[in-house]
């Protein structure tokens, strides 16, 4: 979809969150000179076209007890990447699964999965079972747990 100036205004207006009032879309519209129905229609269109991936609650997972946050990186032979990416991405406990570039010689890993758990030992045990059940013992991998978080916010758009 092609975004116009008013769309960008709308995008900027709601990025910090919807107003917590009975008619949130009307409140947003008042600020940018659109009526309630027009705001609803534009947001709907942006959702359908994928400009907005989803609208809803964005949680702070650490505060909800998900403190064991593992990035599992794999050095997958190029010819097996699609097959493995799709297989791992479909698993219940894997929350994100991306192909990213290797940065040789320092960084050989090209498939990145996120697993969010409540305890490190359980996440590690899960990864061991995953390697076993999916037959991945010949694919080198590393588990990078997150430590301190220094900044968490969504991307900002003007």
């Amino acid at each position, binding site marked *: 979809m092609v975004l116009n100036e008013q769309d960008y205004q709308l995008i900027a207006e709601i990025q*910090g969150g919807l107003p917590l009032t009975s008619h949130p879309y009307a409140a947003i519209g008042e600020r940018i000179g659109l009526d309630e129905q027009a705001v*609803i229609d534009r947001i709907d269109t942006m959702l359908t076209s994928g400009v907005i991936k989803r*609208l809803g*609650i964005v949680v*702070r997972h650490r505060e909800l007890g998900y403190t064991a946050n593992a990035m599992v990186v794999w050095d997958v032979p190029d010819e097996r990447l699609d097959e493995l990416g799709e297989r791992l991405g479909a698993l219940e406990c894997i929350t994100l699964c991306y192909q990213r570039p290797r940065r040789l010689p*320092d*960084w050989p890993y090209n498939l990145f999965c996120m697993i969010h758990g409540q305890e490190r030992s359980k996440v590690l045990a899960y990864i061991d079972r995953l390697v076993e059940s999916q037959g991945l013992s010949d694919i080198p991998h590393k588990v990078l747990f*997150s430590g301190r978080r220094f900044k968490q916010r969504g*991307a900002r758009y003007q």
Partner: protein
Amino acid sequence: MTPALDDIDRAILNRYQGGFPICERPYQAAAEQLGITEQELIQRLERMLAQKQLSRFGPMYHAERLGGGLSLCAMRIPEDRYEQVTEQVNSFPEVAHNYARDHAFNMWFVLATETPERIDAVLKEIEQRTGFRVYNMPKLQEFFIGLKFEV
């Protein structure tokens, strides 16, 4: 530890991470599905925001479709320089979040820029300011996106 959630809080979180009604009175529509009043839903959301269990209640944008740039970047920082470099990196408004990880590549952050071209420019600025290499690891292919936390 943050204050405990009750069953209704959990129902709200589990149900509305994936989407939210888009109609004139969305909180009322959602509240009806949950069997509570609109006012109670709003109060619970306000409380969970204040307790920082929610980061926000709104949209997650697709950066590239907005015309922006997005990338995951990593750096290898000696422990005795870590605090200082963290401050330098986080001072860039384009750095959306930044995590320490237990690996030689110990600093991982997301860059979000207004245009794709800005990614490289910001990376170079970060390298100049910190004196350390930034490894740019943009997404090449996405196999799954369904980031959702059951509580």
